[in-house]
């Protein structure tokens, strides 16, 4: 299996995977990482997946949406350790990114 980056007319920059004989296997669009400023919510949390340090990175949105995000995120720790999500996407479906649990008072590094 080999992957390489190509420029497709319709989709722009994509990563194409081909097998050893050069036959097409899969492709995915390369999405550029968000370059702007973000708000990070981080700490140690306890969920049904265990106790771990986790962080949310929120980007986009206005102050009100961000406040809602902070309230929801303080009650829903992330499912995975590092979650980068748009504010509106998070508010639309918070259980897609977070799970029931609580944040612990244990201090973590930024």
């Amino acid at each position, binding site marked *: 299996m080999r992957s390489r980056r190509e420029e497709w007319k319709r989709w722009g920059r994509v990563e194409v995977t081909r097998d050893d004989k050069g036959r097409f296997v899969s492709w995915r669009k390369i999405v550029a990482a968000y370059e702007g400023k*973000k708000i990070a*919510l981080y*700490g140690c949390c306890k969920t049904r997946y265990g106790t771990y340090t986790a962080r949310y990175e929120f980007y986009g949105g206005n102050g009100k949406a961000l406040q809602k995000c902070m309230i929801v995120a303080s009650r829903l720790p992330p499912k995975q350790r590092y979650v980068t999500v748009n504010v509106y996407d998070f508010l639309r479906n918070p259980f897609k990114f977070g799970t029931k649990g609580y944040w612990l008072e244990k201090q973590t590094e930024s």
Partner: protein
Amino acid sequence: MPIVGFTSRTTAMLDLDDMGYHEVKYWSLKMLEKFSLEGFIILQSSPRHYHVVFDQEATYENCVSIIANVCLETKNQGLQKWFLLQCIKREFTLRISNKGNKPSPKIVFCFGRQNKEIAEYLQYRQMIKEKVKKQKQLKIDFD
């Protein structure tokens, strides 16, 4: 409660632990001259712990180069640890809210231009501080 912080890929910032105020000021001014960073602010997060935010917008690679330079020259253990953590994430984060018994960082010194990255940082800082305050009030009312 989780800790709230400000994250950016294009702002050069430093987290200087276990260092005196005058030492922090000296290194900040030195870096300002060396990399023409236009201006900076120093925030005190707790006694002998400071944050520095520079005003000049830079690419991620330049920011890494600036911070690595400071790490090498100051030989500050706290800064080196923080820098490694930020390199793993490929973004730089500084705390804005309070953390345990430590209050939120307060501005102790400003120098030079303040209207680019610093202005944006302060805007986010003010917004988050207001939101955290409101959230605390809501929690007290609810309890």
